[in-house]
């Protein structure tokens, strides 16, 4: 019986959210607010269950690692942003997070982009394979033109930069178009999943 109620609630919620496709209406508004409330409740629960309880509360209270109390103190410094006199304390936390963020970007730069530079070293030779040669030539042209497009401190009004930059923009658009197509297909599969739920699990008018 509980399963049936859950399926009905899920189906009504799905249709309620989809009702925005017609226009903004009280049904959508109700489910929108319900969704936001449930989302927040769920987040608070998972933060406690997956992070705070196992990584902070348990070590501090059950394993005697009392010094974890300082995490609370440091975290609480963030609230001093509301005090004009003590807002410098909040900046300590913000600066730490910024430093962490910058460090991770620095690390990811080496991990992501350096191998790409290495991978761009491609031989533009048409033997033994013409296709590979053309592929490598195209790859090099795209690399140059797109990189030139992303130069911001040189003028793009004069040739040859203007032409190369324009070519780069075209290549970017082609790439984005291909990505758009493949991602739309992925999104359609999510929609099909919802339709399957409605037609199979709820209405039982299709069989899998």
């Amino acid at each position, binding site marked *: 019986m509980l399963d049936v109620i859950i399926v009905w609630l899920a189906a009504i919620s799905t249709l309620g*959210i989809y009702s*925005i496709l017609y*226009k*903004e209406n009280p049904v959508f*508004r109700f*489910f*929108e607010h319900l*969704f*936001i409330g*449930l*989302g*927040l409740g*769920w*987040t608070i629960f998972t933060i406690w269950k997956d992070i705070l309880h196992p990584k902070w509360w348990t070590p501090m209270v059950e394993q005697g690692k009392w010094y974890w109390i300082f995490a609370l103190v440091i975290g609480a410094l*963030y*609230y001093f*942003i*509301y005090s004009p006199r003590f807002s410098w304390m*909040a900046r300590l936390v*913000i600066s730490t*997070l*910024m430093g962490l*963020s*910058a460090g991770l*970007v*620095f690390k990811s*730069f*080496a*991990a992501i982009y*350096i*191998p790409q*530079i*290495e991978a*761009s*070293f*491609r*031989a*533009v*030779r048409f033997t033994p394979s013409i296709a590979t040669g053309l592929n*490598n030539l195209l790859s*090099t042209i795209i*690399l*140059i033109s797109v*990189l*030139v497009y*992303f*130069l*911001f*401190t*040189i*003028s*793009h009004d004069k040739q040859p930069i203007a032409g190369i930059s324009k070519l780069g923009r075209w290549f*970017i*658009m082609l790439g*984005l*178009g291909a*990505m*758009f197509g493949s*991602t739309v297909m992925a*999104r359609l599969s999510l929609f099909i999943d919802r339709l399957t739920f409605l037609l199979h699990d709820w209405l039982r008018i299709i069989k899998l």
Partner: protein
Amino acid sequence: MEHSTPGITALELILTGAILFSILWARGGKEFFLRKIAAFDVIDDAVGRAVEMGRPILFSFGLSGLGITFFQALAIMSYVVRRAAQYGVRVIVPLFAPEVYPLTEEVYKEAHRAAGRLEEYNPSDVFFLSNDQFAYASGVVGLMHREKTATHFFLGDFAAESLILAEEGHSVGAVQIAGTPSTLQLPFFVAACDYTLIGEEYYAASAYISREPIIVGSIKGQDIGKMLMLLLSLCGVIAMTVGGNFATIFQHIFK
């Protein structure tokens, strides 16, 4: 790649050096040229549209938490709020990440002060909505319809909700300006928004708006780095094409 090699260390030092050098140069008084970015030339027009229609502006940071992406968008928000406040237009800022709320509120208030319209400042226009991705998206969509927003800014980290926001924003007839470093979401913004900041343009935006020597210098330094990498790639292509020892040297630069 977990650990650096001599080649990578040298390259990173050169790139960092170029950026630091350019920042110092800019701080010394050098004014670097910055090319036009279409999406930023229309910010004032987009704000003007909201003024003419007498409707609010919606500014979303997407899923951004405290980080570089957020701070870039925050600089742009400050500019937008300042311009909007001058003409008495509301800017609604629904937030995904609770930790960015106090900062956003501060900058929002400061922008009103800078515009000389502190009396227009309404703390309830900046609010935490949800940190569940799709609950946030449905909340923002609801806001667009109820508030009948005239202009939308989507700047920050976005994921699967990008198309939901941009498509619904398009359906309410708003002018939309978007930008995200997430290349996977860019196609949706390009398709559904009027102006989109593509890739690195997102990071150049704050330099374009603020003209702060430190940020402009940083952009110049990054450009030097890009040119260096372009040169390196071209030399690599030539080396691989010619073959022989030259190719072997290039193949082992980063090993």
